């Protein structure tokens, strides 16, 4: 597997790539680096909170987009009663913090919270099922069972005939 020719090919590839890489054009992250870090404030629906040793990750739904907020140990997180999910609208919280490009904690930009406040409580709501849908489902289910019975009886009949 680890034949010398493979190792040689890899070394050759590395030797070829290294000088090439130094002549690459301007970095594409340069622009975003110039913009951040900056103060940021926004609110969103709480989806989940994951506690870690040095703080917590708060996943928020902000205008249909997931935004992850890092809340260090010192930052107080208000009690969250509802988290967004099926039939549940999560509590809305407002986050004031700093947007940075910190890949050590994350694989993308990170908002490190300074202040977190609950601005709107969430709620649970019940499903609404139309009577028409229930009736259609029941009629179809009964037809399905009838078909299954006919099929089984017909198969049994054929076997007896043989």
């Amino acid at each position, binding site marked *: *597997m680890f034949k010398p020719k*493979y190792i040689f090919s*890899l070394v050759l*590839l*590395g030797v070829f*790539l*290294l000088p090439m*890489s*130094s002549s*690459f*054009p301007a*970095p*594409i*992250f*340069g622009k*975003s*680096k110039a913009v951040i870090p900056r103060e940021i404030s926004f609110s969103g629906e709480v*989806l*989940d*909170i*994951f*506690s*870690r040793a040095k703080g917590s*990750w708060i*996943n928020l*739904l902000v205008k*249909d*987009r*997931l935004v*992850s907020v890092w809340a260090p140990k010192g930052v107080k997180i208000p009690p969250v009663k509802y988290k*967004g*999910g*099926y*039939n*549940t609208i999560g509590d809305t919280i407002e986050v004031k913090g700093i947007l940075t490009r910190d*890949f*050590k904690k*994350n*694989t*993308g*930009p990170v908002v490190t919270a300074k202040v977190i406040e609950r601005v709107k409580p969430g709620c649970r709501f*019940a*499903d*609404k*099922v139309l009577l028409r*849908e*229930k009736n*259609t*489902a*029941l009629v*179809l*289910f009964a*037809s*399905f069972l009838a*078909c*299954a019975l*006919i*099929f089984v009886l*017909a198969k049994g009949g054929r076997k007896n005939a043989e």
Partner: protein
Amino acid sequence: MIFSPDKEEFAGILHILGRLLLGLTLAMVIPLVIAFALREQKPFWDFLLSLSFTGLAGFLLMIVFPLKKDIRPALAFVIVSLSWLVASLFGALPLWMSGHFGGFLDAFFEAMSGFATTGLSLVRDIDHMSFSVNAWRHLTMFLGGQGIVIIALSFLIKATSTAVGLYWGEARDEKILPNVIDTARFIWAVSFVYLILGTAVLAGILFWQGVPLLKSVLHGVFLFMAGFDTGGFTPRSGGIFYYHSFALEIATLVLMFLGSLNFNLHYYLWLRKKKEAWQNIEMRAFFFSFTTLTVLMTVFLVNLGHLSLSEGFRQGIYQLISAHSGCGFSNLYPGWLDSWPQGGLVVLIIAMAIGGGVCSTTGGIKLMRLAFLFKGVVWEIREKIYPSNARLAAKYHHLSDAVLDDKRIKAAFFIFLLYLLSYLAGGIIGMFYGYKFLPALFESTSAAANVGLSLGITCPAMPAGLKITYIIQMWLGRLEFVAVVISLGLLISVFRRR
């Protein structure tokens, strides 16, 4: 001359499709039970309705069109082609009724993406989706990854020549055991064992990271089905990134890698023939391709993206394995892939285009075919430079030593060419809708190679024509073109006869 199916054979095709629909009906019982257990009322009625409709259609097909004779192998290709369309059509019903999709086309796209183990998604507001609908989304990946036909062979169809045709039709180039039914059952058994082990590990990690027990177990099952079957759906927005867990990233990396392995290799590893893993041509091709692409990716990310070596490695490796295995999981911040250097995206396109092992759940050209082509080129060069009376042979090892012949190289080249054309055609259609070439090619390759990584083109607002293009690409890519091409040939012959 192309032969045309007679009336009895047509009836047989519809009969077998009816059986497949019954299989789909049985599968729908799982989300139905979940909806009942978790008191998700609306999904419960949606699933009861979809299940009844699908079952009814299945029984009607079986009653009206009895199976009177064995189906010829060429017609089995038609059944396989149609089965993926029919499964996606009926499988889209509960998704459509859930209200999380813009229309039936979007739900159909999602179902095809699931059954083809692609992972491109048009879902809206996934974070408020019920567990049962999410279960169905991920179950489509599991069923599709195992192969709808494999499941039908395991449980619904007796050992006949039809069964053999169906097996080959589903882009499965190799048998593991002498009998295709036994092979199908072995594939099923392997996956079931991995399902239990994988779910336990993933659920354990999620629970350890602070996710409630029930949610850990359900998300564990979902992520396993999407990871091992190289699908790529996730139950929440943001993919694997959502969980902020390095342990989960490692576990899903292993799952994706296992899922991209040839099932034959699983069999050999189960028999503790570890030597095969080092000698196998596919493993060698994977090692070479993965190492080369990793070096390239790291250079691009570190130099152009200005990431540290460890950051570039963490981001690069995950996306690379995800692309190479055809899974489509991502540990990147949503939308962040778009900010990658173009060179990094090109490396991902290459990895997606190649894919994993034959007889696995991955899509794409496949490693073995590329290895055959490479050996073929080397063979050709050697023939030119060696004396004409020299006897040259290209050898390879896959389960046993073999000599590479022209027929295999030709077959590999045929599939290779069709995939390339598909990637390119999808890219050009994307450009026609106003997208730039590289993102359009990226998305097209992701669809045709059944990967699921996205630069953001795939979204509910994308043009309907592009949705249909990607549906066709996912379908063709999953069946490796052959079954669909044969079906089209037979369809033309039927029209000509009339």
